[in-house]
């Protein structure tokens, strides 16, 4: 999809992700720096009252970020904010979705405001977010 084509209401292509494995959680811990054991150590998770480890919220935020960099160059992202609404269990299948909420010109730059969400297969919304990206005229 061309960034120049975005208009309010434009739906970005859905991004379906493969099931999140324990290996992915371990690799993401190392790659991201988020070493919180609740995501990679079952003993720690159980001691904290969880049934199992669960995915880093930042993994879902990184997946949603792919919607942004599929649309515009990484340097065109002005801001990106999310709220984590629910835990993403290990093995979950996440789908990322984005919609163009508005397009406006700020400081001579055409900017799109995107509404973003990550969902589980059962429809649970795990992450809601918003990003502002510069799009070419």
């Amino acid at each position, binding site marked *: 999809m061309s960034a120049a084509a975005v208009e309010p209401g434009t739906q970005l292509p859905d991004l379906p*992700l*493969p099931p999140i494995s324990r290996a*992915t959680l371990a*690799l*993401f811990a*190392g*790659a*991201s*720096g*988020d*070493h*919180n*054991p*609740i995501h990679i150590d079952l003993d*720690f998770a159980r*001691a*904290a*009252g969880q049934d199992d480890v669960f995915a*880093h*919220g*930042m*993994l879902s*935020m*990184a*997946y949603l*970020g*792919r919607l*942004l*960099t*599929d649309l515009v*160059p*990484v*340097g065109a*992202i*002005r*801001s*990106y*904010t*999310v*709220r*984590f609404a629910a*835990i993403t269990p290990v093995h979950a299948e996440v789908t990322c979705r984005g919609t163009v909420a508005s397009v406006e010109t700020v400081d001579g730059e055409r900017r799109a405001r995107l509404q973003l969400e990550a969902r589980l297969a059962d429809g649970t919304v795990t992450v809601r977010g918003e990003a502002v990206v510069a799009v070419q005229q």
Partner: protein
Amino acid sequence: MVIDESVIGRELPSFTVELERGRVRLFAEVIGDDNPVFTDLDAARAAGHPDLPVPPTFLFGFVLEGAKSTQWLDDLGIDLGNVLHAEQSFTYHDTAHAGDVLVYRPRIADTFEKKGGALRFVVREISVTREDGSPVVDLRDSIAVVRPAPADAR
């Protein structure tokens, strides 16, 4: 220690990070991003970058890295097992690339309770700059502490 509004404004230890090319590649691969600009130096340079640019959320992870990263929670009497990431925000000023050396300066920006004290939120703001002070990104993260210990138990 009781967490209350008196912690707002507290500066936490700053730290410096050198961005490694291999780490940028691994991050992109783990999140399944096949955009070659994040993994292939030639593709990055063809797109006008001096080195591999970092994916949009890459710079936050360093805040959580290593044993010292949770010292501030220990200091507030917060058990890491009771912490959930509630919100995360990035405001971008400049693109960071592999090879960059960045300075992180965190401070506690806010704290408040919700659900009658069942949840305690702590918000940090972290300015990330180059060594010359020029801004790269402003981070804002909010954590929710579940089951905060009652004040009389501390």
